[in-house]
């Protein structure tokens, strides 16, 4: 690596979300001496996404309710917003923006997160059609979601279920269509998922499971959706909540593995196709695909809120260590990046909390409580506990966390 900016070295952070902001904060915390510039394609300063499907949507809150507080004096970082990065050149240590601007860097942090996946239908009308990833998305849904409207949500993941519950609370008629036969069944297990389904149905949400939307109906605006089983559902608002794709196109052409996010080593440094690590390119947050150290399984991305936080800290320490070796106490003994994932989800009065990596499990058991009330499940791989998740029972879930093998 070549420190092209000499003593005024520069770290460029692409993506002005939580991961981007927290990287800048951590760099300052670890006494990084150079310049920091944060580039974002949204016009907004970094904000917190989880409320978008919950409080913000329910209460029609404004951006200031979800913006992260920033101490600009301490941060001393330049924000350039509303301009997306189009192309990285690792060789030239520079990025090119949509506006044509070119910016050079010494260190680059990729924190561009994900975008919602959208389907293409024979009638691909967009009017009345939504997805939820950004503040602007949430505002658009809220504006359309008047009481009495017919909402069809595609997908039974966390975001689909949360939006369903919130819009039901606003008086909409809500239907959910999904290919799965049990909501969250693949994530949380069959009995857990069935109970979630039961509770949503008891609140008046209609499910069309093991099913699929094959086309939209309506000329200027969507009026109905057609299902693969022949049914047609009335629909004013169609929301696609079928997962996401990583924003990695700007990294293409640099011999990186972009098959699912940006592949890194266990220090979050990008890995080239030939297996070598790039010492000045890091991935932070939802786009980082990092190795699984404990079970030796293929590297994976984890789309939970604490990952941007942990990965930004780790990346900042690594950068500062490269610039000022020895300045970070204990760095030499640091093991690979392997934090405990955690997430929560609120749907109606169902409050789900989880620790650990659920996807590792090959078996699950009800450990405490009963399905019709509060409960906690344990998830196992080769008989060792790899995750816990439950509804309510927060103290129990917290105490089980200690037993999780990470």
């Amino acid at each position, binding site marked *: 690596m070549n420190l092209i900016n000499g003593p005024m070295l520069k770290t460029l952070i692409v993506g002005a979300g939580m991961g981007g902001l*927290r990287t800048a*904060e951590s760099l300052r915390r670890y006494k990084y001496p150079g310049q920091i510039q944060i580039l974002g394609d949204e016009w907004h300063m970094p904000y*917190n996404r*989880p*409320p978008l499907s919950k409080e913000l949507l329910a209460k029609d809150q404004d951006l200031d309710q*979800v913006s*992260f*507080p920033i101490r600009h004096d301490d941060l001393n970082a330049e924000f350039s917003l509303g301009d997306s990065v189009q192309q990285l050149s690792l060789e030239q240590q520079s990025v090119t923006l949509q506006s044509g601007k070119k910016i050079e860097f010494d260190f680059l942090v990729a924190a561009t997160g994900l975008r919602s996946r959208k389907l293409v239908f024979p009638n691909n009308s967009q009017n009345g059609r939504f997805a939820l990833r950004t503040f602007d998305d949430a505002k658009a849904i809220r504006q359309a979601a008047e009481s009495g409207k017919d909402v069809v949500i595609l997908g039974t993941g966390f975001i689909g279920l949360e939006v369903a519950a919130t819009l039901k609370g606003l008086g909409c008629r809500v239907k959910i269509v999904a290919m799965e036969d049990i909501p969250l069944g693949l994530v949380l297990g069959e009995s857990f998922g069935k109970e979630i389904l039961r509770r949503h149905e008891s609140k008046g949400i209609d499910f069309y499971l093991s099913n699929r939307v094959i086309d939209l109906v309506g000329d200027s605006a969507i009026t109905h959706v057609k299902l693969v089983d022949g049914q047609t559902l009335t629909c004013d608002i169609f929301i696609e909540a079928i997962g996401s794709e990583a924003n990695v196109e700007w990294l293409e052409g640099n011999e990186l593995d972009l098959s699912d996010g940006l592949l890194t080593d266990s220090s979050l440094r990008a890995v080239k196709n030939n297996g070598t690590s790039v010492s000045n390119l890091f991935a932070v947050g939802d786009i980082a695909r990092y190795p699984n150290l404990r079970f030796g399984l293929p590297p994976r991305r984890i789309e939970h*809120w*604490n990952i941007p*936080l942990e990965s930004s800290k780790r990346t900042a320490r690594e950068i500062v260590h490269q610039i000022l070796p020895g300045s970070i106490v204990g760095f030499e003994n640091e093991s690979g990046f392997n934090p405990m994932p*955690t997430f*929560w989800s*609120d749907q109606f009065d169902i*409050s789900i*909390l989880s620790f650990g990596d659920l996807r590792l499990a090959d078996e699950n058991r009800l450990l405490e409580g009963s399905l019709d009330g509060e409960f906690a499940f344990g998830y196992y791989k080769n008989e060792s506990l790899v995750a816990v998740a439950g509804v*309510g*029972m*927060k*103290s129990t879930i*917290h105490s089980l966390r200690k037993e999780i093998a990470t």
Partner: protein
Amino acid sequence: MFKIKVDMEKCQHYGQCVYEAPNIFKLNENDKLEYLASADESERDNVKASADICPMQAIQIID
């Protein structure tokens, strides 16, 4: 010393803050958050970390 304020309207009692500053935050036996309203300077970094990790962004440090 500095003061700590948690917006109890926002707090959902997930307890993520507990891991960053176990001397300041805890979940009681009813799964509700309890915390100390002021702390010694030595706890400042921990409480900052709690404020960062709080999913509801409910924790405020008041100087």
